[in-house]
């Protein structure tokens, strides 16, 4: 087998292993810790009988390992159990919300990724000059500002004072794409701002790293134009680090979605998760946790695989 295929296969296997381990962690975090699910659902006033009944209903009388494997095999077959609070099938409730969350994240990525790469290049082009300094100041501010501040600032000024966009982002299946996009304009803007700075700064660092290589000097000393130097010599070597940056930030975006959904009352998975954490609805929390972890691990895996594929030493072994 070509060594590169082997490496990719290894990375895939590692991700699956990691996801399995994460599922164990999530399960352990919600069941074996001292907190008692039944107690927390029924509250302090619960009678011992009702507690015992609920425990049995939840399958708590079985050993934890059995419950874990039941849960895991269920999850593998697309069955994530039923919600405690309303008895509904979790997969059914999640489906639409996951779609909504991905819709939001997708449009945020569509705006943020090209913008960040463009601005990152700009920062490299005008290194140590004002565009670069501005970008690092914005980055400093943006890692210090909570997502909900950006959200409410936009909601207050753009939504309420100017009335340019809806302050609450409700979407239905029956809406047209245009209506949906208009509804999510503000949350997309917030998410873009949240990841933009990071992505810009990391893109800048990645490209700068390549631009400082000796082979860039060689190219310059061949008399190539700046554009040729970048396109022919910097770009092929910058793909991997930049894709890496993008993937890491998309993973970050998926988490940022949670807060933004709550701010704009957006019917996505983050909102759903937060609601059910407050209600201590463990099966829902486990299901959402697993899905978020899977997306996160998946994006990180893609980043690594791209790095492997783009490495000439691995692609053309001796």
């Amino acid at each position, binding site marked *: 087998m070509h060594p590169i295929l082997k490496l990719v296969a290894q990375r895939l296997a590692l991700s699956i292993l990691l996801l399995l381990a994460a599922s164990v962690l999530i399960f352990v975090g919600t069941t074996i810790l001292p907190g008692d699910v039944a107690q927390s659902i029924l509250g302090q006033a619960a009678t011992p009988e009702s507690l015992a009944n609920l425990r049995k209903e939840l399958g708590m009388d079985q050993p934890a390992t059995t419950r874990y494997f039941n849960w895991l095999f269920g999850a593998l077959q697309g069955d994530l159990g039923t919600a405690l609070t309303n008895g509904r099938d979790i997969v059914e409730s999640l489906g639409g919300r996951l779609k909504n969350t991905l819709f939001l994240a997708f449009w945020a990525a569509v705006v943020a990724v090209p913008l960040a790469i463009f601005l990152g290049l700009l920062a490299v082009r005008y290194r140590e000059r004002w565009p670069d300094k501005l970008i690092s100041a914005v980055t400093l501010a943006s890692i210090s500002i909570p997502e909900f501040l950006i959200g409410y600032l936009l909601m207050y000024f753009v939504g309420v004072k100017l009335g340019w966009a809806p302050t609450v982002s409700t979407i239905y299946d029956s809406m047209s794409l245009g209506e949906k996009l208009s509804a999510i304009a503000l949350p997309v803007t917030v998410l873009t701002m949240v990841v933009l700075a990071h992505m810009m700064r990391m893109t800048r660092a990645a490209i700068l790293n390549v631009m400082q290589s000796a*082979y860039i*000097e060689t190219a310059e*000393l061949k008399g*190539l134009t700046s554009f040729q130097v970048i396109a*022919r010599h910097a770009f*092929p070597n910058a793909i991997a680090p930049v894709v890496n940056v993008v993937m890491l930030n998309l993973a970050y975006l998926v988490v940022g979605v949670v807060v933004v959904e709550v701010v704009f009352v957006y019917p996505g998975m983050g909102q759903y998760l937060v609601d059910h954490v407050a209600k201590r609805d463990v099966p829902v929390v486990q299901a959402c946790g697993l899905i978020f972890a899977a997306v996160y691990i998946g994006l990180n895996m893609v980043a690594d695989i791209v790095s492997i594929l783009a490495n000439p030493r691995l692609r053309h072994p001796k």
Partner: protein
Amino acid sequence: MSEKFLKVEDLKIGARIYPPGEKPRNIDIVHGVSFELEKGKVLGLIGESGAGKSTIGLASMAYGRGGVEITGGKVWVNGREILGTNLKDLRKLRGTEVTYVSQSAAASFNPAKKILEQVIEASLHQGKFSKKEAEARAVELFTKLGLPDPENIGDRYPHQVSGGQLQRCMTALALCPEPDLVVFDEPTTALDVTTQIDVLMAIKEAIRDTGVAALYITHDLAVVAQVSDEIMVLRMGDMVEHGTTDQIINHPVEEYTRDLVSVRSTQHDGKPPTDNPVLTVENVTARYKGTNFDVLHNVTMELHPGQTLAVVGESGSGKSTTARVITGLLPPREGKIHFDGRDLSSDLEGRSREDLRELQMIYQMADVAMNPRQTVGTIIGRPLEFYFGMRGAEKKKRILELLEEIEMGPEFMDRYPAELSGGQKQRVCIARALAAKPKVIICDEVTSALDPLVADGILKLLENLQKIENVAYLFITHDLATVKAIADSIAVMYQGRVVRYGPKADVLAPPFDDYTDLLLSSVPEMRLGWLEEVVQNRKMESAGN
């Protein structure tokens, strides 16, 4: 033809530096250097680090690396003044009229592109040749430069060929567009000495055959003497002396030049071995953890009290690994280390404090061998405290004595390593080793990172200290000139084995084994015509075989 192809007049170069935590400031690197170069001639630029030689080389392409800026003077190439011209014209100059060969070909080739593509890129871009012509020329150059499989080597990626081969590819890259001037910037410095000679000859022949002019930049006078018609000696951004190669090598005028010429000529009369070696390495075989091949095979050598054993070899020969085995950092698979009549435990944990004290070590990179957060006083004082329990005034007195021994004043006690020069750092490391009153000091390439004159000073210091303290050195080096200057006996290592071993006089006297012969004959000598002689001899030998 005596057309002045390159003319540099009163060239001044500065740079803006950004010291961490301080305001950026401007410094001068080159203060007004002038020279001329005719077509087909080679000018060697020589000097220690910081002399400004690379900067001058790049200035002939009107290029400043990093924050470097040309602040004054004029440079003419082919009769055109280039410092004032715009970038567009400069780009026509670079890559066609003037090209560049850097020290590290490995870093200078784009790892994502095939070699051939990169070699012909400038010619195509400048419209000098068609793709077909350029490729044919590249293959021709590959052949001329002695690269294996010249037809196909260009289809490989840079990491798929060896360092010496890549350096020759870099030369091909520079020669491919038929330039009028090539700037060679330390092109053989990163190579092993036996590889260097081939690359050097390849470069020399390529220059002769193509008739280009060249600036040959190096810190090694013996190397530059082989390829240059003229030599210019630089120091701290000033010209010291400029003359023909013959004049500089054989009749240097300036004192600094004389020092440079004589630097490698120090000779040391080898002492005969004694009956009781202080350190014996016996049949050591070793491998690194997690690997399945031995890096040392049956290594045996002896070190006698108050003497120096030089362990010499190229990269990968196992000389540094031998040191790691002796110090206990790498327990051997087989074999023993005897020290002063007793067996040493094979791993570090098993050794007594006395064992550790009597065997000290000095490193190649003095700046990472000292804790940057400790003062010189702390660094030298710690062994005193640790081994002898010295405190207060007694310790201080001894620190001052040690500073005196390494020819440094008491004012250095409170300084941090970052405030010292390279040579001073290495001296402090020597003092730290001496503080333990050891019987043996392992010196691992201790002079390789230093400029020749500074290195010479360190060697002389080590020799004096040996007489005073009666300490034995296990001296690991790749540099045969150093070996001649300091060794009593020599072990030549190659691919993890000792291939030749004995008192210096015997090891350096014929008949030689093949490897030692190759190694010895590859060391550049400070005289004209040495390179041709060696190559001629080798050709005759291989013809005779």
